[in-house]
């Protein structure tokens, strides 16, 4: 993996440190699965990580939904534990 990509992924990984334990665990499980991330996946993850914690948790736990297909796919992957 080139250095630029490593840094990008490490930054994403750090942004998964959240205010709510619920989200910390969801992201911990996600990274532990070692899934491949395309550029599109990274963009989707970045978009999700920019959300407020409560909104993100409601989305990930299925209490709310999204019309954005890019986000839907990433949320489904996050929920797979």
């Amino acid at each position, binding site marked *: 993996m080139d*250095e630029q990509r*490593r*840094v990008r992924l*490490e*930054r994403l*990984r*750090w942004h998964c*440190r*959240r*205010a*709510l*334990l*619920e989200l*910390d*665990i*969801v992201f*911990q499980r996600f990274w532990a699965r070692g899934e491949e991330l395309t550029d599109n996946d990274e963009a989707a993850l970045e978009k999700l990580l920019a959300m*407020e*914690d*409560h909104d993100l948790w409601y989305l*990930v*736990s*299925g*209490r709310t939904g999204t019309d954005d297909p890019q986000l839907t796919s990433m949320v489904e992957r996050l*929920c797979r*534990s």
Partner: protein
Amino acid sequence: MSITVRTFDAVIVGAGGAGLRAAIQLSESGFKTAVLTKVFPTRSHTVAAQGGVAASLGNSEEDHWHWHMYDTVKGSDWLGDQDAIEFMCRKANECVIELEHYGMPFDRTDAGKIYQRPFGGHMSNFGEKPVRRSCAAADRTGHAMLHAMYQRNVKANTQFFVEWMALDLIRDADGEVLGVTAMDMETGEIVAFHSKVTIFATGGAGRIYYSSTNAFINTGDGLGMAARAGVPLEDMEFWQFHPTGVAGAGVLITEGVRGEGGILRNSQGERFMERYAPNAKDLASRDVVSRAMTTEINEGRGCGPHQDFVLLDITHLDPATIMKRLPGIREIAIQFAGVDPIKEPIPVVPTAHYQMGGIPTNYYGQVVVPQGNSKAAVVPGFYAAGECACASVHGANRLGTNSLLDLLVFGKSAGETAVEELKKSPKAHKPLPQGEIDRALARVNRIDTQTGGANVHETQLAMRRTMQKHAGVFRFADLLKEGVERISEVQKSALNTEIADKSKVFNTARVEALELENLIEVAVATMVSAEARKESRGAHVRDDAPDTAERPNGRDDENWLKHSLWYKEGNRLDYKAVKLTPLTVETIALKKRAY
């Protein structure tokens, strides 16, 4: 080795509620203020606080700060300092109204006043009946509070250093604090933040426990830094546990589940709370339920392959009731326990929730330590507020909604005192001692170059399991004694870790190794302080200090009405008296804590 030095009037470490509140005070007074934070301010753990903030506004019914003070002293099991508690309860209204003026969207009454709701332990007329004292913003009080205060700081030109990790305090030979060393995670660069005033607002260290409701960022960084700089940690044996965290995850299952008819069962399917609390059963108070659960597990009636949890059963409830009255619980159970609570019970364990102890301060927010004839000499230039500090207002047990109040009142107080100090003595910055900078550099260099060391995650897990088993919600003399030895062994590994990734730029492995070095200091302080305190008080409950006529609840005021002070150097303890004299009112006299 020389490093970049950045100079400020004030440096605040941590951008949760306490840090942001302190920063407002300094920046609005015109002082050049830096706030260092590992994560973006509105991602701080204050966000997780939902219950509200206590203040005797009396908007819904008659209330008085003196009644609030009484409840807080009683809740603390008389270990709280009564001067600090009076200060906090008297300041509550002012701090909440200020927050309202900052734009905090509190819930409203029809008349437009701040809506207030009742909360456990808050009573009117000195313990007579529940009172509406909690001010909330829907279920997002902490979140709304952080946003309001962050915006206020932006307006006041507070300078934020986001994704910076503070490494160590800088103290000179006179003991004065002159700032901190910190690492920019983006570049790996280590910088000295040179200041006249340093305020720690780094939050708690709940991650020392295997089962914890705390987010991953709560690694006790301020406590680790203070301990390494020779500052003792106060009352670290006192941790509040919540009875129902999802086993293996820690995520909270609200008390409302038992309120709606949820039943706790052991491996034999028995509703064991009937034996421990024949009247209240599953609705007994948090500490009673937590101890009963621990006893079931310790006596071999736990569930699962390791018999290490009990079950919270709501399968007998109407699914429509679960969906309607307990929103979110089903999602939590499915996501974190892998069970649908409509069909299967939820595995739960008592879970560490809040740290009552911390860096010793007075009610001005100044850090105080034993020195010469004084047990509370001010450390020049050093302040602390919020969960990382011990003022001490929570004593042996915190009341709900007093945590947000604590961070508002003492965040402001630390900021105000710092402003006064800066105005009083507008001296130049004292020179930075090179040895202190080298200390931080050496610590990072050790992690970068270590070979044949311990694995960070394995060591962290060993620490968390040791704490859960040996210093959990219900404590036993032999387990505590053994725990002191075990945690010392884990400490050796924690200070001898090795990381595979040696890169400088955005190296999260290095950050985690540094965080572990902070956590382990808190873990050792907790275990040693808990082993030494031979009574039961508040959240510290020992099997060998039971409830007797002579010592109600196992509390021993004759020998243990005192604060513990743990020092890293020599792994030793000292003690100081509890302040039983309030500022203006009479002492709230000792009596049995009963509800």
